[in-house]
């Protein structure tokens, strides 16, 4: 009996994996059915669905990049303090002091890559007409996930607290000033008054809600941090679960009828 067989015969191995190695048909089916992560897959799929020519693998890559972002993001949170006093210094420390000082690089380039792969995934799904019934709703979920990807990237952009980040976020959040009805410089804002008192001012409009202040400062840093590390990832995780579930429920990965 080889060493590998011995390991696979051991009680410990069998307690984790509930069946023999997936070397025959029966066990290749079982491995998918009995493993939490693998069971996201069906047991068997049409051959065209594993052709990279067809899928470009972009959906899977986007999901994998989300995983990379989560892992590197958690590691970064060990070092990073979202305050005006510390944020920038922690960036310097991440670059110069922390061992394996490429954490921030992997996180940033992974984020940029994810924006691109999500776009390419959308393009592939469009080109193959895969949004058509019965997959309409999953396309809508996908659009929301696309927006969440951009928002995740945007909120993360502020955290280094350098000139690049605060001014990019200033440019972005200034748009919210002009939101119809809800921005203090937007059209229709004048309609929301009571006895001549404006309800929507620079201290109560949608930009203020986003930044927690009239300009990008300590409050915005905290809000973006919470959005970036907690609120948006939770939402994205939930919607990804729905997205994958619906891929299965809508008949698996799309193919010609």
């Amino acid at each position, binding site marked *: 009996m080889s060493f590998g067989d011995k390991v696979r015969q051991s009680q410990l191995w069998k307690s984790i994996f509930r069946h023999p190695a997936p070397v025959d048909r029966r066990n*290749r089916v079982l491995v998918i059915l009995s493993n939490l992560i693998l069971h996201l897959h069906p047991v068997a799929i049409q051959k065209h669905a594993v052709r990279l020519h*067809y899928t470009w693998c972009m959906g899977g890559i986007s999901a994998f990049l989300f995983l990379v972002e989560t892992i590197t993001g958690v590691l970064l949170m060990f070092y990073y303090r979202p305050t005006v006093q510390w944020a920038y210094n922690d*960036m310097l420390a991440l670059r110069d002091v922390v061992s394996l000082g490429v954490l921030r690089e992997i996180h940033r380039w992974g984020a940029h890559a994810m924006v691109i792969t999500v776009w390419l995934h959308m393009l592939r799904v469009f*080109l193959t007409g895969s949004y*058509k019934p019965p997959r309409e709703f999953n396309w809508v979920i996908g659009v929301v996930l696309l927006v969440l990807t951009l928002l995740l990237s*945007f909120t993360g952009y502020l955290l280094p607290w350098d000139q690049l980040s605060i001014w990019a976020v200033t440019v972005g959040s200034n748009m919210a000033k002009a939101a119809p009805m809800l921005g203090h410089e937007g059209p229709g804002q004048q309609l929301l008054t009571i006895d001549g008192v404006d309800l929507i001012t620079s201290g109560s409009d949608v930009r203020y809600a986003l930044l927690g202040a009239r300009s990008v400062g300590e409050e915005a840093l905290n809000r973006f941090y919470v959005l970036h590390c907690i609120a948006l990832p939770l939402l994205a995780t939930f919607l990804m679960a729905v997205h994958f579930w619906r891929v299965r429920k809508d008949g698996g990965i799309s*193919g010609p009828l």
Partner: protein
Amino acid sequence: MLVDSSEFLEEIAATLVGLHLVAAAMNGIAAWRGLRAGGGARLRAGAWLAFAALFTLFAIWAGQHTPPGLPDTIKTAIDAALGPVTLFFGSLAALTVLYLGREFFVRPWVGWCLGNAAMLFFNLSLADPHFAQTVLKPDNVPIVAMIFLLGYFLWLGTAQAVENDRRLRQGQGPREKDFAEKTLVWPDLVYIELICMVALSAVLIVWALVVRAPLEQPANPSLTPNPSKAPWYFVGLQEMLVFFDPAMAGVVLPTLIILGLALIPFLDFKTEGSGYYSIAGRRFGYLVFMFGFLQLWILLILVGTFFRGPNWSFFGLYEPRDPHRMPLFQNVNLAELFWTSLLGRAVPRPMADGGLARFTAILWREIAGIAVLLVYFLGIPLVLGRTLMRRYLANMGKARFTAMVLLLMMMLALPIKMILRWTCHLSYVVNMPEYSIYF
């Protein structure tokens, strides 16, 4: 970095050597595959070998700090030709040619010629310090990667669509149907996923080691950089600010983009054509999506990132970013064009206050613009539904058709406004600063 050219050549050498070698290796692989395939491919393999040799030679030159570059006359000519107008219409023309000639362009050797041309242009341009400074900004590297990835995947998708369209014409099923047989996910899919994850991790780690994440000076709210740019994926929206006010470019249009995307499956709701690459059966939807994605989203991002400099002025690829260059402000509103240029009268000036009378006076001042918008958003859709797009109205029903036409008109408003800006210097069709309404 830019002052001393020998210093620049030293800094750029490693990057250039790497890129030329990558191009050489890719041509080497193409040649090897061609030689194995035999037939006509063997002849073309010779050409790829020549390209490989050329790129290797360039790599050696770059390593000796004498990289080959584009001659100054060509660079000046390119910069002189480039502008927002030529970029927009040039890209539109190029995409049209690619679309109409897709049967030709999807041939592997033609695609590879285009790929070589792109790599050659990029690598040669990179020997220019101004080009390198813009393109190699750490946050711009992913955009360059995106251009090449997008080119490749568009080619790949179109090639399959062309093949499927041909098969469908001949009464066969799409090629995807040949693979309808089932296969087990273990090992056929999980191993692909594993290899993909390992490869991608390797790419990310190498990328992280080679390009450092940018870190500029500490945040300083009292020191505004010129230009201040949004993150690159939102730069397209920022570029729209040239043509629209912030409410439109920053809030209304993005909302409509998201809404329009989400509505696609409810507007193109037929089940046929699902699950395989195809163009022939869905030309209209295909062209609208591609125009929106490539021309109005990706191109605007490229213009905003690579061509806009201080004061949001337009700069060529090889030009220094002169901070004193100001964009020309000579734009006029439609009200001025209508009252002054057309009727030869002064623009009516509404009284400072006075409720309804003032409101009416403002509407009167903007009467031409309001009429234009009414015709554009009501008249044209009504006419379209009765003439050109009657078939769509009948197939889709009133609700879907209205949603689609309004979204289309909104989408076309951007290129129309661009053209009006470039031809008549039009700023706003309707301009009511009294109510913060600008369109």
